[in-house]
């Protein structure tokens, strides 16, 4: 398979993740769409690593996975704390920072 096919698949995954971040109202589903965008970038890294036959791309995917895991931990902790006071995670009702 040529490299462009893998990059095209990565592009479609990335745009679907971005659509999920823009269109969903549940904060947890927004986080899950963010993970989909991370996966799209990881797929691009692995495809380039296989194309150039260098192992650096796969190591960077390793680092991206570790950072994504820690980001998810902190983000979900924030969501839990927000839920304690506001009793909702619908992002349309998390609007008391304006004004």
């Amino acid at each position, binding site marked *: *398979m040529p490299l462009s096919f893998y990059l095209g698949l990565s592009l479609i995954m990335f745009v679907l993740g971005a*659509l999920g971040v823009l269109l969903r109202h*549940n904060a947890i589903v927004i986080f899950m769409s963010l993970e989909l965008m991370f996966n799209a970038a990881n797929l691009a890294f692995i495809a380039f690593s296989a194309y150039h036959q260098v192992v650096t791309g796969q190591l960077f995917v390793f680092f991206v*996975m570790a950072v994504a895991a820690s980001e998810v931990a902190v983000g979900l902790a924030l969501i839990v704390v927000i839920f304690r006071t506001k009793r909702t995670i619908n992002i349309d009702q998390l609007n008391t920072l304006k004004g």
Partner: protein
Amino acid sequence: MQIILFSFLAILIIVSAFGMLFSKNAIYSAIFLVMNFVIVAILYLTLGAPFIAFTQITVYAGAIMVLFLFIIMLLGAERLPEAEVLRFHRIFAILGALLFIGATGFLLFWLSGSWDALPSPTSEFASPEVIGITLFSEYLLPFLIIAFILLAAAVGAILLTRGNNTPQIESIQNDEE
């Protein structure tokens, strides 16, 4: 043969991504995302990345998604009523996404240098030995920084959710009475 395998996996990836996007129930979205991660891990296997594939299944599908499912369970988030505040921005978002895919896809296939297939995966290109040697020789500093990032994330998550009712150690004076 390769094109059949790739197109089958790609269609499964896109279908599971759509399923994650359009599910009303957050648990269904999480299950679709788990399926997406596993199919992407199979794709990594065809690209000659066995270590990353199994790391993906262990870390993403096995740890991160389980954390998501626990949080959805604890918060009762699957029962969210979908209140539509701005209906018109949905069509603009989809139009923008199609435009982006069209423009970038056109550039991708127009500027693509070579159309020959990627090399078939071998067992010694990215075996765990090679990954380990490269990780601990060339990329030792990012590896140690990742350790600090994970520590900061763990401490941060515990600190954020600790709350105000921490158990206090009683003083010794009370015991002497």
